């Protein structure tokens, strides 16, 4: 029986990919299997989310699973089961491992797919955004296994299967890796994942000082929204640890408010999924203005306090 192999170190994502994989594979009589750590508590639930089989790796330390080790684990399982496809969640380390696996098996790999399907002949076709999200490419993979990476929250995890539990323990002995990790600094991430934010307030380079974030936090609190930033604010100034954009988080809130964000193409590509885009910027020529639903041309240091004042007033009236 043909098989699809799925891996994510994030439990929710693993379930999402299993459900999507199972719905695509079911009719074609293709098996869907998951790789997970023996430390995972809810292994049995994976079978309800669509898994037919689970390969349980002994001594899998999730955080330290560097691309070399992950490649070795995948290779061991792939060489045994010869799957038609390998699907990973699109983290940076997984994207590296995906490319390595594709190179090892001389096959095709598509990173950051937004959708995929199994063709009648067992080949995989996938969709992904290219040209800074200005276009969608529809592509087909030749060679076995087809390798895909898929961003988190792309599909819904559905608990609707009743597959029998089948777990195989796999021991992978990893020789010394060529890269030694000397030190790990965990980034302090605030709030829930940006992908899940309903209202997202994003600050850009127009915000001059770190202290000014307080005013934006205040606005976020009134709107019950989450605050993030554009790439230079996080990557260069390090006021935040994450950023919104193609190279950071691709977001899909119902309301996005860009404050002093100029709108570099990579940033705009990352906010395409927003229902409503609002821009507050003093430069009427900034690219974000023409990409917005509503824009205020004005100095953010005047607009934001007035916006806070207005929202406060409204709130006070509501409770009267």
């Amino acid at each position, binding site marked *: 029986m043909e098989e699809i192999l799925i891996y994510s170190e994030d439990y929710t994502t693993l379930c999402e990919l299993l459900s999507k994989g199972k719905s695509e594979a079911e009719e074609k009589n293709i098996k869907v299997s998951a790789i997970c750590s023996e430390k995972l508590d809810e292994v049995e639930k994976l079978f309800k989310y669509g898994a037919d089989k689970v390969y349980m790796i002994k001594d899998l330390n999730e955080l330290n699973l560097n*691309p070399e080790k992950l490649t070795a684990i995948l290779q061991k399982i792939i060489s045994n089961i010869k799957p038609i496809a390998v699907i990973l969640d699109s*983290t*940076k380390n997984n994207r*590296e491992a995906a*490319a*390595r696996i*594709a*190179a*090892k098996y001389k*096959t*095709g*790999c*598509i*990173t950051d797919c937004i959708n995929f399907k199994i063709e009648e002949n067992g080949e995989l*076709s996938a969709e992904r*955004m*290219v*040209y*800074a*999200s*200005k*276009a*969608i*490419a*529809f*592509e*087909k993979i*030749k060679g076995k296994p087809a390798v895909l990476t898929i961003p988190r929250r792309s599909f819904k995890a559905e608990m609707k299967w009743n597959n029998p539990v089948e777990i195989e323990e796999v021991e992978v002995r990893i020789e010394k890796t*060529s*890269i*030694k*990790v*000397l*030190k*790990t*600094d*965990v*980034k302090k*991430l605030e709030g829930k994942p940006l992908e899940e934010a309903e*209202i997202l307030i994003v600050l850009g380079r127009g915000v001059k000082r770190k202290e000014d974030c307080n005013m934006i936090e205040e606005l976020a609190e009134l*709107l019950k929204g989450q605050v993030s930033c554009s790439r230079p604010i996080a990557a260069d100034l390090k006021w935040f640890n994450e950023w919104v954009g193609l*190279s950071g988080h691709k977001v899909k809130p119902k*309301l996005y408010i860009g404050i002093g964000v100029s709108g570099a193409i*990579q940033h705009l590509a990352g906010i*395409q999924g927003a*229902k409503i885009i*609002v821009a507050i910027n003093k430069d*009427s020529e900034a690219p974000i203005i*023409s990409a*917005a*639903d*509503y*824009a*205020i*041309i*004005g100095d953010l240091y*005047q*607009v934001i306090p007035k916006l806070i004042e*207005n*929202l406060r007033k409204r709130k006070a009236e509501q409770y009267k």
Partner: protein
Amino acid sequence: MRIAVCVKHAVDVSQLRMDSATGKPLISTAPMKFNDLDRNALEEAVRIKEKIGGSVIAITFGGEKAREILREALAMGADEAIQIVNDINVKPDTYITSQVLSEILKMKGPFDLILLGEMSIDSYSSQIGPRISEILNMPCITYVRSIEVKNGKIKAQRDLEDRYELVEAETPCIITVTREINVPRLPPLMAILKASRKPIEKINLSSLKIDAEPKVLLIDLKGLEVKRKNIVIKDKPVEEMVEELIQHLEKEGVLEG
């Protein structure tokens, strides 16, 4: 230290237009540019050379016009430049491109360091570095925002989603860099003039022993234009502008999570 940098002549996505009739992006006529992240990689290579000595060679695989970015690379401080010409009109995917670059790296090697951008601005696949590392059997450090070279050892800081990782590897080694690693120099006029006299070596794809059958086939490409309302509020007292915005947002039903 011998350093190779793989650079891409990429579609300038900010200038990409759609065909009004078909809605498809006009790729073949789109303006091209030096892939920004590869420019960071080249800058880093030149800085390492300036610090500890050695040479930098820039390699590109692309159309005839890809020469332009090799000229830029030479002006920025590369010593040699190689252009692989797609003389047999293959449709390169990451499988083919990584084989082509690996062949040249073998031919012109050995190199102590091979640098690339973390991805290209047009296709965003981030596969080339890791694929070359498998083909050449060399360690690969991806998503690097700083590099230190000391006694044949590399220390690099990787920028991952939830953490920074300081890692160490021996040379030879492949590194893919992020935008934050440096600010690429603008070469002075003298350097540009000098670079225009440096030779660029041309190698035909047909002369390389590679498997030129792509593994990813493009079936269709659709333009994606999200229509936005483009309502601009300006030239009014701030209070009024704010009130107007809030009324719009209330009507949209997007206030309060």
